[in-house]
């Protein structure tokens, strides 16, 4: 049993160690100042920020509705929300092209409006939001479901309308769970590769995000690819630690403790 665990852990850790072991840390840091890297970093941060804002603004009310109301078609809605989770990224990419591409379902409408999505940062944002949103929305549903309905009822009888109740009671109690979901969604979005490269392409300085830069540098400059990878490992690791800390510091039992709680 212990041996199996040791093998499993070693297997998980080895690629991470290898990223840092091939070349000296100094070389890695030097590589990070190359334009191909800084361009990708800026695009990654910018598209992630916009995509995550969309996920939060649209995902939070959606999750609250699904967590607190029972209506026909609710299960179907939950399945739809979770769909990108199991969809192969390549399929998501094809789907996005078929929907929003120049010859896609909405392509004609978008062209008529003068909107061209192919090879733009908007396309990156769409791909990232599509693939990363379920990580936030699922967690948000579970978190909202865990908020004691009596507290909501109490706020209402104390004179607070639905909006005030949401901001004064529900949101503060759900804060940690939502932050955890958002961290996961952000991490997933930052690493998005398949759907982005298909739908938005990999143009340096335009649509090339960090993972796409790694892929492109693989053929030309392996050290740079390693440097970008190292950067992403650090970011992901930091997110994971932040997530753990957030979830463990829970003074009340009102917010969800489980990260991957099934949303019914």
């Amino acid at each position, binding site marked *: 049993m212990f041996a199996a665990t040791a093998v499993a852990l070693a297997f998980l850790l080895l690629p991470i160690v290898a990223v840092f072991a091939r070349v000296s840390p100094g070389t890695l840091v030097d590589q990070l100042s190359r334009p191909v890297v800084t361009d990708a970093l800026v695009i990654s941060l910018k598209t992630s920020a916009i995509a995550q804002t969309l996920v939060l603004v649209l995902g939070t009310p959606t999750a609250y509705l699904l967590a607190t109301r029972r209506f026909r078609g609710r299960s179907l809605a939950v399945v739809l929300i979770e769909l990108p989770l199991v969809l192969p990224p390549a399929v998501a990419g094809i789907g996005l092209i078929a929907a929003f591409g120049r010859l896609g379902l909405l392509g004609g409408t978008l062209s008529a409006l003068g909107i061209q999505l192919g090879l733009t940062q908007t396309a990156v944002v769409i791909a990232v939001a599509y693939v990363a949103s379920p990580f936030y929305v699922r967690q948000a549903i579970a978190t909202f479901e865990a908020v*004691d309905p*009596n*507290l909501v*009822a*109490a*706020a*209402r*009888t*104390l*004179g*607070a*309308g*639905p909006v005030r109740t949401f901001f*004064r*009671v529900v949101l*503060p*109690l759900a804060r940690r769970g939502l932050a955890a979901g958002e961290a996961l969604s952000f991490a997933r979005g930052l690493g998005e590769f398949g759907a982005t490269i298909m739908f938005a392409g990999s143009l340096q300085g335009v649509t090339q995000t960090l993972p796409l830069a790694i892929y492109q540098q693989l053929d030309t400059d392996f050290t740079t690819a390693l440097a970008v990878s190292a950067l992403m490992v650090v970011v992901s690791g930091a997110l994971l630690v932040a997530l753990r800390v957030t979830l463990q510091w829970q*003074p*009340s*039992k*009102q917010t969800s403790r489980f990260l991957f709680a099934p949303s019914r």
Partner: protein
Amino acid sequence: MAALQADFTLPLRSFALELELDVSRTVALVGPSGAGKSSVLRVIAGLVEPQRGHVRLDGERWLDMERRVSLPPEQRRVGLVFQDYALFPHLTVRGNVAFGARGRDVDTLLERFRIGHLAATQPQELSGGERQRVALARALARDPAVLLLDEPLAALDAHTKAEVRHELAELLRELALPTLLVTHDYEDAAALADEIGVLVEGRLRQLGTPAELVSRPRDAFVASFTGANLLRGRARREDGSLTAIRLESGEDLYSADEVEGEVGVVVYPWEVSVARTHAPEADSALNVVRGRVGSLVEVANRVRVRVGPVTAEVTAASAERLELADGGIAFATFKATGTRLVPL
């Protein structure tokens, strides 16, 4: 004083809650759990919409299903105290009380409920009695016209309960608001309320003052719920004014009530005397049950003791004098005039 009128039908899982109730003083709804008691409060507070009916406070129409009027909870002036108090865990005691206080003086309220020193404390750190006071202060801060209390004493341990019950009774008298409270404990209801309604499976079995429920229980359930002994038997009229009842156990009892057929014999524990010997010629009490002394339970300065099928309540001193703790045979006697008959 303002009066709350409620008349509605609300289908619940296995029965429909059908209720017509006027509340001007303190009314307690009692009944077994699952009788729909809490749902009554939720309908009045606007948290649940009934199928039919209305809720009015004097001239104010809170709910009228026929006219499609249904004010949201925040527009009904109710102070609802939840069973587990439902204090906001992310707010301090002060934050909780201030939540619904529109311009009202929160500090005065905190002082009045002796929680001023806890103003900066989180609810999780409070004792049961303190939580209850915070919940009451929070509900009153909203300046309600009606007070609704859901099992206000159920979350307290036995030790705290007696004291809190006394305080709550005083508070309700002082406030003089129409108050509807629900409880599964008849003694709590009797201590707090002017009127008690017995709710079983969504229907009011009887509504009356505590004294009325005890002196004239309408049926066997009300009788046993108010703490009476309930014995089953068959009644037949005898010559004169008495009714004789043959119990299932074979004994004969007498009652001044005039009923025939299958009946429940109702007698309250405090109307039953216990003796070690019985001399019929020297006793005005007609009813005698001979039996083995069973369980003894101390209730404050009294002792509840089983003699055969009958529970009697005697003073602790009497229990000691009669050596009831040793068991053995004893006689439970009670007067025919204190023996009520109810249909089964």
